[in-house]
């Protein structure tokens, strides 16, 4: 019957909301500080950020040798 199926659906929604309401949350300031820390720690190893020289990056064109 339509009332019992919407009842079941409603129960699921409430169940899910109860679950979501119970999780532990941290403050945005804490989370943001951690994200920033991760970025700065790994910044030196990020080739797209720092740029690598042609010799180590296989995609960059090699310096052209010209005959004198």
């Amino acid at each position: 019957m339509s009332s019992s199926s919407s009842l079941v659906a409603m129960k699921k929604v409430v169940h899910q909301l109860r679950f979501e309401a119970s999780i532990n949350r941290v403050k945005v300031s804490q989370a943001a500080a951690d994200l920033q820390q991760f970025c700065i720690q790994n910044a030196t190893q990020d080739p797209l950020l720092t740029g690598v020289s042609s010799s180590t990056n296989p995609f960059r064109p090699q310096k052209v040798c010209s005959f004198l």
Partner: protein
Amino acid sequence: MCDQTFMAATFGPCDNCSKASPLMNIYIKTEAINYCSFCMEMMACQGLQKGETLVSLKRESDTLKKKLEEERAKLNDVELHQVAEKVEVLGALPIKTRRVLKGHGNKVLCMDWCKDKRRLVSSSQDGKVIVWDAFTLNKEHGVTMPCTWVMACAYAPSGCAVACGGLDNKCSVIPLSLDRNENLAAKKKSVAMHTNYVSGCTFTNSDNQLLTSSGDGSCALWDVESGQLLQSFHGHTADVLSLDLAPSETGNTFVSGGCDKKANVWDMRSGQNIQSFESHDSDINCVKYYPSGDAFASASDDATCRFFDLRADREVAVYQKDSIIFGATTVDFSLSGRLLFAGYNDYTINVWDVLKGTRASCLFGHENRISRVRVSPDGTALCSAAWDNTLRIWA
């Protein structure tokens, strides 16, 4: 059929109170129930109580939703870009097109890098799936799928197989062989079966498990060997357009985004929806985890990309500009997570500074919509696939 009730009169012991009296024989959902008239009335009253429960459940769900919003708002003590004020501003980024991969006959819809950092697989609207060597521009393998619009493709972690799927409602795994003359299409194995198009697929940490997202609103985890469904994930109320696996080795969560404007985080083992984020104004086209696994970004048709933190359980940044009015279709982070590459329907790729929330650069070159951007596994290059039939490598 099951909802109809038939009434007939007989005499005998009641099912409920066992007293002999005239019985009303009714069928509730094909089950025969013979109650006396008194017990019938009791049952009808209990039915009324059920109606009340529905109303009280609705009330509870409304209060819970409000409580959730309050809890989330309480923790919003500062914005991400405020925390990042002391971080150095990014210099000019020397990123340019280094390779153009031509060979597809129609729109390139998806691509994925191999873990060896040089091979990649791409799939297109004409049904062709091509494996390229990005250094030499060689096409190593080519497979023609029997359907058009191959919207999803993924490279296996071992590099020995690729998975692809699309309008055929299936996701198939194709083992790659070193023998060029071998017909790869013959060895194709259908693994995932959905009831609508497959929008995204990815291997989990091994070659033997495949995670797929589909237009039927569900995501599913499959065993490649047997084709068996290991776990299904229901919760989206519209097409699921994208999914991404959490980066850690032990991690067993993934995030999915869809046309219901929601991004959901799931536990792979239990199938439970752990967290849900709803702040976009339109379909979410792509979701991607931050390299640390504590956050993810999403790209949407509302022309914004948003950054959600999982531990704070809320959106922490919005990447938008008044001059950007076309929908964003794809996002990916650089290796450190400082840069967010986002492809848009106005044929450009915007590079956002994740911490400060500003645009660091804009990459031009494609002549049609960008369908996918992916940073290579070692972070040295970015590959973009577009509807202009080409892929570009930027470094």
